[in-house]
């Protein structure tokens, strides 16, 4: 089959996407597919029209790749593609929107509030900080609404940390979230065609936070896969993950990140185009389920439906 791999692009996660794409290309090649690698740029549509792939593997992270933009283009071009469709991408790309959907569906997610930069610059949202803090308590997490790889995520241990953390978060997006901090174990669970894969536990070795560097540098983070969970914990995590998948109407594959605290699992976010690099979590999750990276890619390709109108 002739498969185009979309990667790179203009987002801050360009390098991560190039790594994901390269790994997917190798797997497709080994599976005997004809691979066309496309670095998403101004000539994307022209390239797709010229190459006429049978399936498009979306390995683009960050904006454009994960927020439904590219998916919308692929639909208008009548090209089948991997992963969730436009609505699920739109929902999961914006963490505030995704959390609202989860809450509406009764899926546990840490309490939050979300503001745009204009709320601060034009509506005096700064004067509401006290109320925000009273509702969420410290420590709290401040993060950009869109974007991945932990870029721009900061802990605020107390009031004094808030202005700087906000400045950081607003550097990555014009909308940010204040989120109640859940202490516990950080879990990442892959889902393939609605089937929940084993959870991976992420334990950063040095930092308190699973930072960008800790994510992509070998040896900086300890991964326990499958995570050591009791039967009750495992089924609670699986159930929450499956409810998340349903609530956001995911298709194909996705990755759900959760915190397992004293009150059970709580969902932090959903990745519609999860990383597929050498240190990424979804491939680990799949491996624990007995799926090699090539098996995983083959399944994902097989699930790519034609959504052409």
């Amino acid at each position, binding site marked *: 089959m002739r498969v185009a791999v979309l990667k790179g692009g203009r987002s801050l996660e360009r390098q991560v996407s190039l790594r994901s794409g390269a790994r997917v290309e190798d797997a497709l090649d080994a599976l005997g597919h004809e691979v066309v690698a496309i670095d998403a740029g101004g000539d994307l549509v022209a390239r797709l029209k010229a190459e006429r792939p049978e399936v498009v593997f979306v390995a683009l992270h960050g904006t454009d790749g994960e927020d439904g933009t590219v998916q919308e283009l692929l639909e208008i071009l009548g090209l089948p593609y991997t992963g969730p469709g436009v609505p699920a991408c739109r929902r999961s790309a914006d963490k505030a929107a995704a959390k609202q959907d989860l809450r509406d569906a009764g899926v546990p997610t840490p309490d939050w509030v979300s503001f745009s930069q204009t709320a*601060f610059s034009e509506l005096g949202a700064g004067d509401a900080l006290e109320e925000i803090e009273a509702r969420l308590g410290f420590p709290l997490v401040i993060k950009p609404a869109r974007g991945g790889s932990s870029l721009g995520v900061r802990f605020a241990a107390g009031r004094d940390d808030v202005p700087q953390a906000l400045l950081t978060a607003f550097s990555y997006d014009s909308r940010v979230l204040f989120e109640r901090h859940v202490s516990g174990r950080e879990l990442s669970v892959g889902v393939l065609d609605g089937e929940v894969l084993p959870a991976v536990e992420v334990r950063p070795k040095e930092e308190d936070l699973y930072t960008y560097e800790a994510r992509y540098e070998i040896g900086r983070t300890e991964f326990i896969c499958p995570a050591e969970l009791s039967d009750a914990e495992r089924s609670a995590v699986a159930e929450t993950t499956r409810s998340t998948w349903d609530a956001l109407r995911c298709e194909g594959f996705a990755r759900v990140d959760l915190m397992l605290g004293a009150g059970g699992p709580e969902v932090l976010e959903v990745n519609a185009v999860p990383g597929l690099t050498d240190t990424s979590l979804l491939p680990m999750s799949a491996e624990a389920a007995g799926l090699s990276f090539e098996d995983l890619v083959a399944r994902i390709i097989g699930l790519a439906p034609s959504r052409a109108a």
Partner: protein
Amino acid sequence: MRDTSTLVSEQPDIPGVPAAPAPAPHRRAHTSARDLERYAALFAQRTRVMRSSAMRDLMEITARPEVISLAGGLPDTSTFPPESFAAQMTRIAQESSAEALQYGPTEGFARTRECIGEVMAAEGMHPDPDDIIVTTGGQQAIDLVAKTLVDPGDVVVCEAPTYPGAVPVFCSYEADTRQVEMDSDGMRVDLLEELLEELAAEGRRPKFIYTVPTFQNPAGVTLSAERRRRLVEIARERELLVVEDNPYGLLRYQGEPVETLYALDGGDYVLYVGTFSKILSPGIRLGWLCAPPPVMEKVVLGKQASDLCSSTLTQYFVDEYFGEGQWGAYIESLIGVYRARRDAMLESLERHFPEQATWTAPAGGLFVWATLPDYFDTTDLLARALRENVAFVPGAAAYADGRGTGSMRLNFSGSNEDEIREGIRRIGKVVREQVDLFETLTGEHELPAPADESERGDVVPFRRDR
């Protein structure tokens, strides 16, 4: 890591070469995270400090064509006349083909070292040709010095901020890098003496003091004549080596030249790093190191291990180029171009940066160092700036210890005046936006002056120069 660019096989049309389809490149099967852990167990201890970073990945994006990049350190090579380049390379092909394609001596050709002598004489230095080794860029000279002198844990002293490219060199030899604050007259030599005293109290002394005293990268400042004399005295009194890195000394846009440390010292305690990168071309990868014979002996052995010799082909090119006797005139033309660009940058900063920002006004070189209020993290700000298609180097790159987060390095040699004005306007816009946001959040409308600058540590206390 393999090439991540789009894999389109192109068969260049070369006459006489049969148009056989190019074999598909061998593609290594990717490894699982577990395999990677296995490699990680083999890594040398020093790789732990050779870290990738979000900043480095962000810097990759600065290469996009729509981005105005004030992040590079690139000289403008577009002004070098292509016809003389063609004539020089043709002469080499016709007259010295076999030699130019052959290995050369580790120390470099005698003729190349004569050319180096000419360049150094232009700044009042007259080294013994035997004290000169040709290196693969000034970068290799720094690496060879560190390789020769530094054991893990040894102290290396440099400026705060220092040349961002030196930080990974010192890290890779596991040096304990100590950085000495600067002001508008360069390194605070009084603070250097305090540091040396502190170290002496612990029974330690630095292996060398690395400095870019003239038009410093990244700060743009120049060490005053008085401090130069004192620094050379300190080196003599304490028998310490100073490594003077001087890539920009000839690129002076105003004022009178200051004597180099090497000239003041006569080459006993001062090692000198030079380069053709900024006065001719970085693409030829030629620089040099001057060191006294005992040091040189080890450096030569180190270079043999690294790469046997620097490019003979480009050494022939330097020979041809200097043979024409026009190198001084070319530098004069560069000075005209860069001076106008520097002026455009300083004017734009004045116009577009908020009053809380300070910056240096370099009399030469390629860089301006701007410092924002200390609540800024310029690595995050770079992410914001990239949304406006403009880039700079975050200040943290110039520190070994995570400081410098309030500052940024701005290059003015690699972009034309219009690009510089537009680039600074865009950065100014995002800086103002964040200053306003911060003030809204904290209820501050005027930031109080820091109580004691020595306590801040994370910004260089340059005065705004108006």
